């Protein structure tokens, strides 16, 4: 587990907690342990480790946190690192609606308390041709779905990024926005319930950096990265297939499924190989991003050239 870097912000938070406890804290050991317990979670998350059966080597935290597509801030890959710091993480409640037994809003912290945390070291492949390996922290989406109890009309799960133009400047640009807002993604119910499908609240043992889609995002490792929607606001169970943002933007280039597939090119570029971040040489892209054994049954009988 990498040691967390202690930022001045964290120290500031810690000092505030310390002062709240009063002068007695200086001598009282119970107060000291209370202090430790109430330390902001920026420091470490507790989770079950991924035994990493595929023996994947994660990219560095610096690479993963400095190379992001977060068009709500900018189409540049590093600009969101600074810009995203305006996101206010607490409170942040997620809305659950649609064809489910219990429609409600739940704080991210309460979700973590309910479902616990585990680590998943996954490959991540962007449709643009680069890839990385990330140790995410979170919980599988099926745990949440079990809790929400979708009814028989729930055929798809629809995900929506928070729409708050005060935070996300591109959402305030109207006609001149880089993409349609708010960002929408979708999964078929069986894809959503697949044990690999994951909701991440952290990575590298720490809460998600804001530019990586804090406080909570989707991760679907066998699909192109744009399916892994950031900074979630709503999760809805719906009857009709949602129109995901990139499909709405350019339907001949991006489909609903967006499964990683080295044999089906993007109309403008090849998908056969990929650039692993930090490497000057390329590597082969794997069918379903290396998760073929686990997920290919979901697409039996489908023409993946048409249903891209």
């Amino acid at each position, binding site marked *: 587990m990498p040691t967390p870097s202690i930022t001045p912000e964290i120290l500031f938070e810690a000092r505030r907690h310390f002062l709240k406890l009063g002068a007695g804290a200086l001598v009282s050991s119970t107060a000291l342990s209370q202090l430790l317990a109430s330390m902001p979670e920026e420091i470490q998350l507790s989770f079950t480790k991924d035994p990493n059966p595929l023996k994947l080597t994660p990219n560095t935290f610096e690479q993963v946190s400095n*190379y992001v597509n977060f*068009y709500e801030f900018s189409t540049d890959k590093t600009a969101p690192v600074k810009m995203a710091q305006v996101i206010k993480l607490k409170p942040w409640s997620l809305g659950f609606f649609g064809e489910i037994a219990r429609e409600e809003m739940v704080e991210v912290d309460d979700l973590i308390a309910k479902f616990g945390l585990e680590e998943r070291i996954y490959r991540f492949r962007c449709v643009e041709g680069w890839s990385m390996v990330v140790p995410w922290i979170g919980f599988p989406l099926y745990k949440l779905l079990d809790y929400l109890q979708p009814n028989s009309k729930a055929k798809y799960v629809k995900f929506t990024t928070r729409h708050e133009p005060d935070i996300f400047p591109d959402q305030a640009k109207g006609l001149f926005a*880089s993409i349609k807002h708010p960002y929408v993604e979708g999964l078929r119910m069986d894809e959503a319930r697949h044990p690999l499908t994951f909701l991440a609240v952290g990575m590298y043992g720490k809460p998600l950096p804001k530019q990586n889609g804090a406080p909570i995002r989707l991760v679907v490792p066998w699909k192109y990265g744009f399916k892994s929607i950031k900074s979630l606001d709503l999760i809805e169970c719906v009857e009709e297939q949602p129109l995901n943002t990139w499909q709405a933007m350019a339907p001949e280039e991006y489909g609903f499924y967006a499964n990683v597939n080295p044999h089906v090119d993007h109309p403008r*570029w090849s998908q056969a190989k990929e650039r692993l971040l930090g*490497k*000057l*040489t*390329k590597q082969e892209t794997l069918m379903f991003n290396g998760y073929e054994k686990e997920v290919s049954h979901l697409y039996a009988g489908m023409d993946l050239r048409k249903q891209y």
Partner: protein
Amino acid sequence: MKTLIVVLALLPLGYTYYALESAIDPIKMLYTTTGVGALLLLLLSLAPSTCQRFCALNLLRFRKTLGLLAFVYALLHVSVFIVLDSELDFVTLFAKSLKKPFIYVGVIAFLILLLMALTSTKKLFARFSRYHKAVYGALVLILLHDFWAQKVAGAFEYGMMAIGIVLLGERVWKECRFNMSKRH
């Protein structure tokens, strides 16, 4: 002065070499520096003649240097494509070049620049100078290529497009006026 231009124009390459080791996505970084460098230098090489007409500032003697520098960047850009991106796999390379409009538009633009660079010596230029008007074709193709290289075009692409339109438009306008005055 020409030496200074060459040195200034090549500085970004030095920086790129230095930054390569810690680059997060090195191949993409090389594509961007060389591609954007070539495009900027090409636009700069078209500026002197407009400049002369508008501000009576004669910078024409720098045109060739700027044009050749643009070619150097384009050559490096194409080398990235052949060596690093396609890893000298010429079968895939040709397949890609023929199938993807985004790529063959770049290839055509590069061939135009290549022919211009080859015929840029004093002797050959005297014979081939009128073909150097093809640079306008190359510019249009490159602007298109740059547009297609993005998932969505941003401020940079629109900015380049605008500068290109101003430089090309000014020439068209000049030609029109010239033709009109000939008729009178």
